[in-house]
């Protein structure tokens, strides 16, 4: 045999190496995320190098500046038309810079900013050994009640890590609704989930509950993300790619070049359907839809209230953003398959949340269930699958997040010896003691209940209108019924605050620092403005309602 022939038996001629072209990253358009993540890393460095005494202020400064800057960047981008005309896919197809993502990023950043304020509040708890303390543990690592903790308290430690964690979470959330391929989606999911797990665990008071909340949240969250990941795997298997655009094409059958393998998997709809279902399930877990909601009450109750407020607001925004993108960009071709299923989910979520909330006795748990019910309302808007559907959901998310932040901020104010007095019975007669706080909280409750002239009503009307126009009239009817049920327990709290005699040993209302005041004030302002003159924001959401693919 000839030498080359023999040679060719165990070697093959290598292809000449074609040069790898460097990835093209539009830093400008990714700036919001980059700023926040960068600030987070700075925060970590601060923890490492800045002396303990001054960490709090440095961290606060860094976080606020970062959020503000990032928000400014978002506004700039939106003003630059990236939300509408120049919307396109950035970072090699990983990130979509378009209306929804910019709008949601803006909302997330504002909630994050207010979140920072509530995190930084240190006037509510009585000073320990002359050190102002916030609502985070002196030293999360030390066992509550142990000498090491007392030492830490005496030394005036505080968990200033909370700020970088918050920044990481926000960074993840910024990516989540903008993610344009499944991998980015998953990574973003983890990036914002993990810090939240930690934040749940570090309450100063009631640490046992806090840690329990963290464990539950973590295990269930990991469980859910495992499902998501498997779903992603199946979708990848179906389409041979994780890019939203490609998958969408494959689903629609408009993919340009079909190789045999793809042709083979494309034929197998089970892959697609099961995969899609599992990914969607992961997102439903994050928005807290029935039956994936059960972590919500426990985590909301156990976590430090500022964290709860931030989580309740921002997580929903991010997760719904991702859900919208997934359903509207990736799976529109599957509409007729997922819409009925979503119908079911929306119905049980609306009713379940509202009904179970009736018998709650803890204000934080009650708000948790109410958040579940609201997830149901938003789902009704998601199902519309019309441009109106998108914009109405965006508007609802914006309205809802501020109300939630404000409400939880008020919750932090009502305190007794054991910290926050979250048991409803302790709220009796609050309206007599401190009318202003009670009135503010009443405003938030009325907004939750969807009373006209509050943002809650405008949002509810928007999503129901979209749903009705999308042909989901029955959903609207069930929606109003569950709103009626929900109204009952919001009203109950108002009755408690205003019409029942205050208990002698009832809680006191702490006078907060300007930080929390700002948070609450912003909440009220947004609630009323969006309720009375929502047109401008509806326009905003309307313009932002177009996805790029």
């Amino acid at each position: 045999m000839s030498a080359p022939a023999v040679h060719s038996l165990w070697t093959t001629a290598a292809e000449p190496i074609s040069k790898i072209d460097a990835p093209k990253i539009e830093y400008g358009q990714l700036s919001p995320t980059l700023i926040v993540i960068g600030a987070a890393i700075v925060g970590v460095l601060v923890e490492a190098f800045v002396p303990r005494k001054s960490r709090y202020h440095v961290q606060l400064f860094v976080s606020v500046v970062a959020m503000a800057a990032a928000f400014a960047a978002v506004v700039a981008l939106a003003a630059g038309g990236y939300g509408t005309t120049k919307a396109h896919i950035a970072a090699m197809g990983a990130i979509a810079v378009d209306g929804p993502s910019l709008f949601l990023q803006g909302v997330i950043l504002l909630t994050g900013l207010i979140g920072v304020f509530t995190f930084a509040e240190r006037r509510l708890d009585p000073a320990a050994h002359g050190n102002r303390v916030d609502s985070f543990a002196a030293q999360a690592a030390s066992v509550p009640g142990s000498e090491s903790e007392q030492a830490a308290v005496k030394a005036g430690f505080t968990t200033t890590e909370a700020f970088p964690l918050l920044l990481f979470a926000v960074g993840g959330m910024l990516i989540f609704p903008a993610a344009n391929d499944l991998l980015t989606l998953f990574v973003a999911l983890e990036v914002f989930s993990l810090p939240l797990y930690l934040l749940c665990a570090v309450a100063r008071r009631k640490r046992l509950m806090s840690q329990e909340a963290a464990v539950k949240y973590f295990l269930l969250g990991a469980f859910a993300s495992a499902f998501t990941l498997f779903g992603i795997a199946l979708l990848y298997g179906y389409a041979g790619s994780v890019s939203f655009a490609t998958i969408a094409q494959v689903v629609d059958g408009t993919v340009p070049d079909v190789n045999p393998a793809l042709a083979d998997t494309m034929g197998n709809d089970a892959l697609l359907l099961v995969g899609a279902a599992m990914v969607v399930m992961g997102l439903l877990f994050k928005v807290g839809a029935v039956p994936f909601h059960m972590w919500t009450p426990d985590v909301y109750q156990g976590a430090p209230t500022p964290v709860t407020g931030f989580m309740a607001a921002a997580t929903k925004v991010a997760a719904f953003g991702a859900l919208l993108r997934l359903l509207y960009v990736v799976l529109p071709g599957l509409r007729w398959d997922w819409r009925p299923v979503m119908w079911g989910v929306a119905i049980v979520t609306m009713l379940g949340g509202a009904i179970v909330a009736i018998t709650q006795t803890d204000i934080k748990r009650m708000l948790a269930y109410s958040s579940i019910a609201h997830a149901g309302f938003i789902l009704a808007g998601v199902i519309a699958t019309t441009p109106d559907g998108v914009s109405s959901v965006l508007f609802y998310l914006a309205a809802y997040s501020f109300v939630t932040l404000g409400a939880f901020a008020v919750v932090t104010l009502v305190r007794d010896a054991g910290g926050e007095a979250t048991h409803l019975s302790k709220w009796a007669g609050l309206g007599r003691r401190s009318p202003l706080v009670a009135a503010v909280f009443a405003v938030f409750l009325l907004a939750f209940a969807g009373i006209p002239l509050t943002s809650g009503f405008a949002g509810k009307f928007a999503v129901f209108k979209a749903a009705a126009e999308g042909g989901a009239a029955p959903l609207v009817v069930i929606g109003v019924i569950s709103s009626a049920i929900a109204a009952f327990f919001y009203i109950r709290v108002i009755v408690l605050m205003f019409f029942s005699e205050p208990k002698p040993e009832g809680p006191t209302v702490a006078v907060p620092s300007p930080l929390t005041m700002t948070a609450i004030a912003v909440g009220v302002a947004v609630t009323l403005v969006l309720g009375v003159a929502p047109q401008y924001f509806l326009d905003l959401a309307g313009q932002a309602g177009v996805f790029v693919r």
Partner: protein
Amino acid sequence: MENLIALLVAAPLLGAAVLLCGGRRLDAVGHWIGTVLAAVSFVIGIVLFADMLGKGPEERTLTQHLFTWIPVGDFQAEIGFQLDQLSMTFVLLISGVGSLIHLYSVGYMEHDERRRRFFGYLNLFLAAMLLLVLADNYLLLYVGWEGVGLASYLLIGFWQHKPSAATAAKKAFLVNRVGDMGLSIAIMLMFTTFGTFAFGPVLASTGDASEGMLTAIGLMLLLAACGKSAQVPLQSWLGDAMEGPTPVSALIHAATMVTAGVYLIVRSADIFNASPDAQLVTTVVGAVTLLFGAIVGCAKDDIKKALAGSTMSQIGYMVLAAGLGPIGYVFAIMHLVTHGFFKAGLFLGAGSVMHGMNDEVDMRKYGGLRKYMPITFVTFGLGYLAIIGFPGLSGFFSKDKIIEAAFAKGGTEGWILGSVALLGAAITAYYMTRVMLMTFFGEERWRNQPTASPDEPSAEPAAEHHGAHAEPHPHESPKVMTIPMIVLAVGSVFAGGFFSIGNRFEHWLEPVTGYKHGNPPVSALTVTLSTMVVLVIGAGIAYAQYGRRPVPVVAPRGSLLTRAARRDLLQDDFNHVVLVRGGEHLTRSLVYVDHTLVDGVVNGTAASVGGLSGRLRRLQNGYARSYAVSMFGGAAILIAATLLMRGV
């Protein structure tokens, strides 16, 4: 001239307004203001009457249109008056008798610290009553109709501190309301049938309407008349109405208001003429009532209640006559007028007696009073003779005519009605004689008798001046009271005769009501004679029972009929059992239903949602693994559902 009509109503209305809003500062002169204003409208009445006499019979009707009241689409209600002979008759009767009784009350209510208000109410009544008879459409008539009802309510219940008075007032108003229902339905029927409810158009176009519709309207009007005129079955209130001060009983519950029903029927003559059925029912109602009232009158020992029964019965005569159609209308009105005189006189007499007897009303505690109050005795006696129809006195003419007309209806009906009327005359003679004897003759049973029996708290404040248990000192009443009595007595003696000379009254009313002379199967003379006979019989029996034998101070148990009659022939018990008790049970049960059923459904729903919530809560059992299970199950369902949608 016609512009004066409004003044007829306005004068007393002004009086009412002034007296009721005036406040205490008018207490001193209030009663005179009231009396004068009543007199004013009487004078205006006289003026208009004179003017009317000056015209020919056909163009005597005056109308005055004030303003449009309720203009809505085709529904055009006007405020307008119509003064014709019929109205004029009433105007004179009302304002005349009214003025007299105002005068009388000045004395009678002397000791009552609320006299001003009493006169206010009296004026209010006059205004309403005049409005009733002057209205030119049924809706405005309805206003007066309920207005007199209100005045009667206020006056019956004038002594509100007496629960019995308050109850009687309420009862009167309620029973009347049932009648008013009839009137309002009648008006609605007229509106839907004729598109109007003004006298002129409606009565002119009865010809075009179906008889069924006219019968319906007629019966509804009759229902109204029954309520106002205390005819069976709505008579129950009149007896209790005697709780009011005696002048009220005289004016409202004898002379004027209770006769409004007769006015209504006669006014609606054309409707009844066109509907024999309605007429028949009317006559039956009248006949039944005249017996009913008479029987009740025989059994009562309370002088006012006895007179009330008699009133009921006499109005029965009028309704009967009105039901007879053109042959009766005129006599109905004529009897109405004469009855107005003598019955008012009788009541005033009764009042005068009570005034002298510490407001004792039980005739068994009277007796032999003629010596002590001669004027009262004489006037009361003349009234007595008039009502029993003693030849030559008012009652004789009017009642006799009615009896004739009843026979003249012809056929079996005629005979039945006629004989009923005769029987009524006999009973009338009986009970009136009884009253007369028990009051003014026989031994003086009031001596060493505690007056005002303790269980019956003395009505009139006068009693507070005399000791409640002191022996009464019968005395004649003051001039201000006797003069009206005398005037009325004169009326009750001569009115009838005056009207009958040359059938004046027939000619006078004929243009309005129409008149047809009815020929009784037997000669008029026979009728008159038989009337005399039964009259004598009735009076005789009464004399035998109460004139010859002493009257027991405590009423004997009496026969079954007597006892029934004392209780208004048990119809009060019937009302109590059926309406009052039944109503109470109904409302009670409804309150229960409202609370448990209607409210219960809602609360039940709420409770069930709450229960559901409680059960669903338990799923949230705190174990992370069970949460994981629900997630896993949820995922499974989600996947399965998605696959099912595709049917893979």
